[in-house]
């Protein structure tokens, strides 16, 4: 199992870099995870999304998709792409230390 070190703490991650145990995540780790995805600064809008992702994951056991995020997080899909250009649901989930949102089938 690969590991990564964020904010001085070693955490278990999967092949795609998602934390395998969301309980290991702490807010201090987010800037470093985001930086690896090309996001140099986490603004208050980023944090709104990250906290929302954590909350949804804790309530439902899975992170929301981009479309659901656009309807429920208070941030529009268009702005979500500005904040997380490489794919909002995926990158916000990774930054928030939760698993990749389950793709709908």
């Amino acid at each position: 199992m690969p590991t990564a070190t964020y904010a001085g703490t070693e955490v278990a991650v999967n092949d795609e870099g998602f934390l395998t145990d969301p309980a290991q995540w702490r807010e201090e780790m987010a800037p470093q995870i985001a930086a690896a995805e090309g996001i140099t600064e986490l603004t208050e809008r980023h944090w709104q999304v990250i906290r929302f992702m954590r909350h949804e994951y804790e309530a439902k056991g899975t992170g929301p998709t981009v479309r659901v995020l656009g309807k429920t997080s208070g941030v529009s899909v268009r702005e979500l792409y500005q904040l997380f250009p490489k794919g909002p649901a995926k990158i916000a989930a990774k930054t928030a230390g939760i698993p990749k949102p389950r793709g709908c089938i």
Partner: protein
Amino acid sequence: MKRIVVLGGGTGGTLVANRLRRLLDGDDAEIVVIDSDDAHVYQPGLLFVPFGLARPASLVRPRHRQLRPGVDFRQAAVDRVDLEENEVCLADGTQVGYDVLVIATGAQLVPEETEGLTGPGWMEKVFTFYTLDGAVALEKALAGFAGGRLAVAVMDMPIKCPVAPLEFCFLADAYFARRGIRKDVELTFVTPLDGAFTKPACNRELSGLLKDKGVGLVTEFNTGEVDGPGGRLISFDGREVPFDLAVVIPLHGGQAYVSRSPGLGDALGFVPADQQTLRSRAKPNVFVIGDAADVPASKAGSVAHFEGDIVATNIAGYLAGKPADARYDGHANCFIESGHRKALLIDFNYDTEPLTGHFPGRVGLPLLRQSRLNHLGKLSFRWLYWHLLLPGRDIPAVHSRMPAAGKHLPPARRAAASPR
């Protein structure tokens, strides 16, 4: 006398009402199916309409005629469900009380949620075959299409019958070849997913097929805007796919009444349910079947069919005061039309992805491989749909639980997937 109200007279609603009618004594339970219209469309047939391979009128039959004697049909629009009062409030102001409610109203298309999609060019250069009107209009447009760029684009998941857009590409390839203009048509499949299909083994096979047929593949493309007059699909991250003719699969959502019913649906209007018992998360006397459910299964007729047995058993158990212990394993089964009178067949469930082998046993239809036999299977399915599936009967040798015999399962999975 208990009353079971089934909202929706489509595939799931019809077959579960018919199954319940056979299961329950007429003196014990009254069964009412409510739908806003009386036209039952054979949705698998829509794919063939644009290519002149199915007559539109032959796909539609009255809903009420598909219900057994002893099942009442009521044509009415639903305003909302009152979960506290166990009542369905109809748009005309009347209330229908229930002991058990079944949500079977499927998914609806919401093309207006994509910027520009229903603007200029809609139904002129930009079409969908996911409605009967759309499929008919597209038939005319294709007949007049002499060459150029044809983009087939999925706006976002979930959609009904996730393989249908791929089948459309395969059939379009064959259609233009038949007309002798295939070399003049640039076919592109555009998807928000990272591959042609959601499941790895199937994805490899289908990506190969697209390549063989010269269909371009654009992945991870989340369409943010459709520019009809300019002929462009524009993604949220700023990429563009140009087209002369676009065939889109619009965004899907649940029915509006679900969102108007406090506590019933999720953000998209689908109804969260236990993925095994199919009982809603909202109330123990509310069950969900088919596309209306928020469960991790495909939105497909075969899913509704296999769920029917489970939902009917659990409702009968609930009315008898027993626990709802029949469990759905996520079994889905679809023919994938690949053109030139051939098709593939895939069979899978929550835990087992589509594998090679044969269905339903060691001797049977080949899985995940093109064959003429599968094409004949797809065609004969239409008869089975009206005459066995909707009446709520079992198709011989095809069961709710996914069969493991005949599949090339990895050894570790064989034990886990065999019937209990």
